[in-house]
């Protein structure tokens, strides 16, 4: 019985939150890695682009709510996502046309493109703050919990409760759907194959008649979907605040590099590596060991490796360690 309690405790406080957070990071990390793989630059506007998509979704959600449209138990934001994705893609394509394409055609070094993306970051941040302001906004409605702690306790008779928030379930399900469609597209369809070819060897791909404009456009379309979905899921789970999205760019970069930048599958797993690392290292295991160990061995301290203040620092340390020992990332495997 104690063993089961310990397992439920871990599930409730570490594994389920880590899976959720990891999914949100993974979507962002695939976005970073796609841009890096196909367009060949580190996009410092990542966090703010995600924020832009989320902002559109938030505004649409408020609009739908004022019209009285809702999805019952599900959050209204899900209804807003498709429209937000369209707006996001339009924004990205506009930026690409007026800013990035010039440097791509000129074949500028990646560093210059990265600096340009810093400019895009400033502009996007300004647009977001001018439109919606810097404040914290909650846009979650519908059913909040799928499983409440008390219900679980009554059901199983355990001491520890298991809570599953609806946002956690939605995040995981939506991530699985989006990511599997994306991998199916990249690996099984002809257009996806042409994208991978372009990323592997640009000159050879051009020789075999692949249209670079189409590849670039498709990349931004996929990136738009990933950015918006990732951003909205994060916003539903926590809350929408522009500044937080800018900060989230850092663990997302860490995830993409840990997974081997340019490798979408690596980025996907990298998201979970970073999330599990952050949560496992900063969790206090005192109660867990109290269940498992006999009473005489019970720990006095919190049994916490690092305080939760260092949550972000953990993911960056993972990155530094990976860069030191395997600069090309943990999962070299498949290249985009």
């Amino acid at each position, binding site marked *: 019985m104690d063993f089961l309690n310990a397992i439920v405790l871990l599930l409730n406080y570490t594994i389920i939150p880590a899976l959720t957070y990891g999914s949100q990071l993974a979507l962002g990390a695939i976005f970073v890695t796609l841009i890096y793989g196909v367009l060949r*630059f*580190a996009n*410092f506007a990542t966090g703010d682009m995600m924020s832009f998509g989320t902002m559109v979704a938030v505004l649409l959600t408020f609009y739908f709510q004022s019209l009285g449209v809702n999805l019952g138990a599900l959050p209204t934001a899900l209804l807003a996502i498709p429209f937000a994705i369209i707006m996001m893609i339009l924004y990205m394509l506009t930026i690409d046309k007026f*800013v990035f394409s*010039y440097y791509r055609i000129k074949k500028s*070094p*990646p*560093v*210059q493109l*990265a*600096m*340009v993306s*810093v*400019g*895009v*970051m*400033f*502009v*996007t*941040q*300004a*647009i977001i*703050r*001018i439109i919606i*302001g*810097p404040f914290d906004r909650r846009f979650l409605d519908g059913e909040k919990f799928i499983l409440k702690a008390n219900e679980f306790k009554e059901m199983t008779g355990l001491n520890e409760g298991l809570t599953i928030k609806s946002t956690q379930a939605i995040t995981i399900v939506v991530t699985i759907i989006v990511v599997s469609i994306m991998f199916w597209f990249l690996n099984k369809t002809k257009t996806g194959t042409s994208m991978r070819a372009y990323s592997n060897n640009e000159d050879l791909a051009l020789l075999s008649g692949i249209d670079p404009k189409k590849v670039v456009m498709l990349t931004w379309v996929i990136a738009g979907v990933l950015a918006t979905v990732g951003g909205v899921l994060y916003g539903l789970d926590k809350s929408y605040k522009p500044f937080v999205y*800018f900060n989230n760019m*850092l663990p997302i*970069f*860490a995830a993409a*590099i840990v997974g081997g*930048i340019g490798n979408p599958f690596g980025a996907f797993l990298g998201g979970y590596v970073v999330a599990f690392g952050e949560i496992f290292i900063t969790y206090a295991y005192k109660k867990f060991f109290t269940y498992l160990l006999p009473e005489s061995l019970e720990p006095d*301290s919190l049994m916490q490796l690092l*305080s939760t*203040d*260092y949550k*972000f*620092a953990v993911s*960056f*340390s993972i*990155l*530094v360690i990976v*860069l*030191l*020992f395997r*600069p090309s990332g943990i999962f070299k495997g498949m290249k985009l």
Partner: protein
Amino acid sequence: MKQYLNVVTAYTIMIILIILVGIFQSWSVALSILNYCLISAVMTMGANMQWGYAGLINFGIMGYTALGGLAVVLVSVAPVPQAWKVGGVNMMVCMAIIIGIVFSVRYTLKKIQKSKKRNYIIAGIIIIGFILLRLISGPAIESIEAVEPAKTGFLGGLGMPVLFSWIVGAFFAGGLAYIIGKIALGLRADYLAIATLLIAEIIVSIIKHEDWLARGVKNVIGLKRPVPYEIDLQAAPWFINLVEKFNSGKLKLINSVSERQDVLNQLVIDASSVYVKLCMAGLFLTVVVTLLIITQKALYSPWGRKMRAIRDNEEAASAMGKNVVKEHLLIFILGSAVVGIAGAMMVTNDGLFTPGSYRPMRYTFVIWVMVIVGGTGNNFGAILGGFVVWFLWVEAGPMALFLINFFTGHLPETNALKIHLIESASYFRFLMIGIGLLVIMRYRPQGILPEKIVKN
């Protein structure tokens, strides 16, 4: 002389702009802008050494700035004897353990060949050292932070003059740069950018959350100053006489004695803040000019030519027998040390250390915009960039407000769009900086004052 014409014009325009702020807003505001411009100029000179001379991207400027600020606290604040009594010994032991870890890792790296065994040994050393650190520091930190938590709760500093901390800040930042350089300088340009950004975040989060070191997010206020305090000035007879002499014409027009005294008092209060800022500006200007002379000499010395050769073609330079790795590390350390000085200058200017305010937006990306806009590889350009961008960053809000009022003048006061725009006027600074960067990158990629190659 002709080749310096654009430099002279650009700087004249900048100075006129600051004087205009002085006339239209107030001299106090103009001087604080000038001070921050000078501090930014030091930061951009540091970043320009790395990017302009050597082509290294360092997005970790925030971390060095924070370390420079930390140096001010650790050097100038008076020590807290009570805290040293309860936890000093343990913290010293921890320090020794950290040094021990570093040296034993270095020893293993040197003595044992590259293998899995070596990795395991290093991991073992670090993990054991970490556990020891936690065990020893845990109770000490608790007792240190319990010493008058509202006022101190930290070890305090050395109680030395604050100007000394500028040098210490440079050493702190240089030391950090040595470690980061050893870890990350082998990486490709964009990886290096991300790695330095993230390492700087780690540094800032340590400063933020280790309360025993510098009070963390509780901030340290009332730091020492290298210049007189306003309160002392307002009571000093020589200062009051000086103000009276300066404004004698104005004061003569007032007939009643009591009224004249009131006006004089007000003038003295205004003048004291201006005087303090002028003193600061003088100190900062000394630093900027000294650094400018040194960097300018370095840039056109054989060493500077070597750096440019490495920047423009690494392979060719290393084929000519130049040690690229060593030179990269050296310039990385020097540039970061300069940024460290700037960090210490900034905290000295503010008189308070607020670790929570170190954010990548303000302390990394804005500085980078300054370098790119001003002119990479040109020291005059870097300083100008610091001035122009900081000026825009501060004055963008008022300018945007003016423009909004101008364009929405025909709308009624209650118009929702107008109210919304006026409320968000301060965010137009991001827009202005972003568009400025994009325009410069596109139409003048070398910056306002491009790099000059002097051939002799």
